[in-house]
C-alpha cells in the first residue's frame, strides 16, 4: 500500500450528498480483471458527454482548468454509498486522488479506500461547508492533509480529524495487512481447532 504522511494538493469540490459508487465508477467498467486503468473512467457519466469518453463535460468540476491535477476531493454526506466495488477507490487513486474530505463515508467504501492508501477525512458538516465556501470563492485552492498531525489546512481554515490508530499506523508505514495477519498463523490454526464440528467445515 502507498504510504501517506502529509499531502498537499489542489482540492476539487463536488457539491452532492450520497455520491454512490455507481456514479464514481459505473458498472460497464467493472468487467476488467486488473486493478489498474480505472482513473480515465472515474465519474464517467458526469465527466463525459459521450460513451466513448471523447467529449469532456465542461460543466463538470474535474474538467475545469482550475481543478487540473486535483488530488483532494471534497464532497457532502454519505460519500461512497451503495455497491462494495473496490473499483471506486481504484478509480479515485488511479486518477490521482490521495484523500477525500466529507462529513461521512459509507462503511464499505471507507474500508476499501483506506486499504488502498486513499485517506478518508471525516470533518463535521459545518467544517466541510466552510471548505466548500473557500473552494467556491477561490477555485484551485490547495488543501494540506497531515496524517502525522491529524490536521487539515485549507487557506485560513485549520481542522483536526481522527482515524483508527491501527489504520493510521498502516497508512503512515504503507504496511501490507495480509503479511501482518499471516504472522499470526498459529493463532488462527488454534482458533480453527477450537471450533465446533458443524462450523469448522462445510458438510
Amino acid at each position, binding site marked *: 500500500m502507498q504510504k501517506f504522511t502529509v499531502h498537499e494538493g489542489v482540492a476539487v469540490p463536488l*457539491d*452532492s*450528498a*450520497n455520491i*454512490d459508487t*455507481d*456514479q464514481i465508477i*459505473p*458498472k*460497464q467498467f*467493472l*468487467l*476488467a*480483471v*486488473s*486493478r489498474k486503468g480505472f482513473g480515465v473512467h472515474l465519474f464517467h*457519466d458526469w465527466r463525459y458527454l459521450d*460513451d466513448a469518453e471523447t467529449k469532456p463535460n465542461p460543466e463538470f468540476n474535474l474538467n475545469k482548468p482550475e481543478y487540473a491535477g486535483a488530488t483532494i476531493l471534497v464532497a*457532502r*454526506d*454519505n460519500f461512497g*454509498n*451503495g*455497491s*462494495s*466495488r*473496490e473499483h471506486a*477507490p481504484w478509480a479515485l487513486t488511479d486518477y490521482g486522488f490521495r484523500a477525500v474530505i466529507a462529513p*461521512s*463515508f*459509507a*462503511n*464499505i467504501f471507507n*474500508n*476499501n479506500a483506506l*486499504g*488502498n492508501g486513499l485517506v478518508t477525512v471525516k470533518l463535521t*458538516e459545518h467544517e466541510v461547508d466552510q471548505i466548500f465556501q473557500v473552494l467556491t470563492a477561490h477555485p484551485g485552492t490547495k488543501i494540506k492533509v497531515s496524517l502525522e498531525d491529524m490536521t487539515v489546512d485549507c487557506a485560513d481554515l485549520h481542522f483536526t480529524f481522527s482515524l*483508527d*490508530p*491501527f*489504520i493510521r*499506523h498502516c497508512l503512515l508505514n504503507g504496511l501490507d*495487512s*495480509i503479511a501482518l*495477519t*499471516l504472522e*499470526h498463523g498459529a*493463532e*488462527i490454526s488454534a*482458533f*480453527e481447532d477450537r*471450533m*465446533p*464440528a*458443524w*462450523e469448522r*467445515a*462445510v*458438510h
Partner: protein
Amino acid sequence: MGKTLYEKVYDAHVVFQKEGELPTIYIDRHLVHEVTSPQAFAGIEQAGRRLRRPDLTLATMDHDISTKSLELSACSPMAQQQIKALMENTKKFGVTLYPIGSANQGIVHIVGPQTGFTLPGTTLVCGDSHTATHGAFGALAFGIGTSQVEHVMATQTLKQGRLKTMKIECTGRLGKGVYAKDLILAIIGRLTTAGGTGYAVEFCGEAVEHLSMEGRMTLSNMAIEFGAPVGMIAPDDVTFDYIKGRLYAPKGRDFEEAVAYWRTLKSDPDAHFDAVVTIDASAIEPQLTWGTNPGQECGISGTVPAPESFSDPVVRKSCADALAYIDLKPGQKLAGTPIDLVFIGSCTNGRIEDFRAAAAVLKGRKVAPGVTALAVPGSMWVKEQAEREGLDQIFKDAGFEWRLPGCSMCLAMNDDRAPAGKRVASTSNRNFVGRQGKGSRTHLMSPASAAACAVTGTLTDVRAFL
C-alpha cells in the same frame, strides 16, 4: 450486562487482538463471484500465497452473465474474460464453482442460503454489498472490497472493528398486499440512505417473527441501503426448518448440536443497543421509491414531495436533483404514472416466494401493451422450482419474458438494460442514477406490486388485485 445477537456472534469469532489494533475475526464462509474476485486471485498468485481454506469458499457467476443463453459466447467479450478467469482461478486454487447452467448456479445471495452454506452464528463475507442478506439467518454477514476478499482468501480472517448496534422493532403484522420489501422500504425511508452507517442492525418484533425465511432475507438484504453493513435476525424454528436437510447443512448429531447453540443466538433482555427504532408494520401500505436513492420513497397513495419541504439544504438539493432525473413533479400522485418496463428478480426479490406472489397477481391477466416485462429467477433451482409449479407458464401467458438466472437488470452489467428515459417498475434494491441503464428511471417495489404495474402499465396499488 447482556449481549446483543451481533455481539454474541462477533465475540465468538475474535481470533486475536493486539494492543492498539483492530480485532482479527475468523471468517467461516466466503462467497465469491466473477466481478470482485479476479484481482484478489491475482494478488494471491503474485505473492505466491495459497487459499487458507478453499473448502470454506464457494463460487458462482451471476453479475455479468447472459439471462438469454447458457452459452458463454452470449456474454460480451470482456464478461467472457472475467467468467473464464473465475473458472480458471477456482480450478487452480481448489474452490467449488457452480458454473453457468449447473443446478446451484445463481445469484450468490440466493445460492448461499439455498445450499445450506449460510448458517446461523457464522461469519460470512462476499465481495458484494448485499451480503447483509445472510444476516436473516443470524449470521454475521457483510460485504467487503476486493482487497479484503484477498485477505480472507489468504488468512480466513479480517481485521474488523466492532460496529455500533441498532434495534429495529417492527410491531404488528403486515397487511394484505404488503410484503417484506414494503417493510424494508418504509424503514429506509424513515432512516434515510445513511441512517444506519456504522451500525449492525437487528430486525425484530412481531412482523419479523411472522415473516418466512425468504421474506427475512429480503429485509436483511437491504440493510445496506440505509447504510448498515449488517442486518441480522435472531434464528428460530423458521430458520432451522429452512436449513434442515440442505446440501451443506450439518447433518445428524452435528445438526442437533448446532441447533442447540443457535437457540442461544438472540439478544439478551438486558442487552444495550446504541439506537432503537420502532416501526408499526401494520400501518404500512405498499411502498415504492420516487427518487434516486432508496430512502426517497413513500406509500403508493403518496405524492412526490417538493424540494422546499426539506429544511436541510443538502437534502433539498438531493430531492431537486432526483426529481429532475426521474422526471416527476412535486405534488404529483405516484399512482397512475406510466411505466415502460418491469423487472422481477435480483438478490432482493428473486426467490421462489417472490415469483409465487407475482404470479398470483398475473394469473389470467396480461402485461399492458407497450410494456416490456422480465422475470429473472435468482438461481437455477428457483427457475426449475417455478417451472415445476407452473409459474413460468403464468408469466409467459401474461406476456413476460421468462429468463435464465443472474443479477440481470438490477445493475445492468450484462445486456439486460433499461433504455434512457424509460421508467422501470423494479423489484431490485437500488434506484441510483443510471443503475439499470444510463438515463433509465427506477421505481423500487415488491414483486406483487411490480406485477400489478405490468398489468396496468402504470404505478399501481397492488391491493386492488388481491
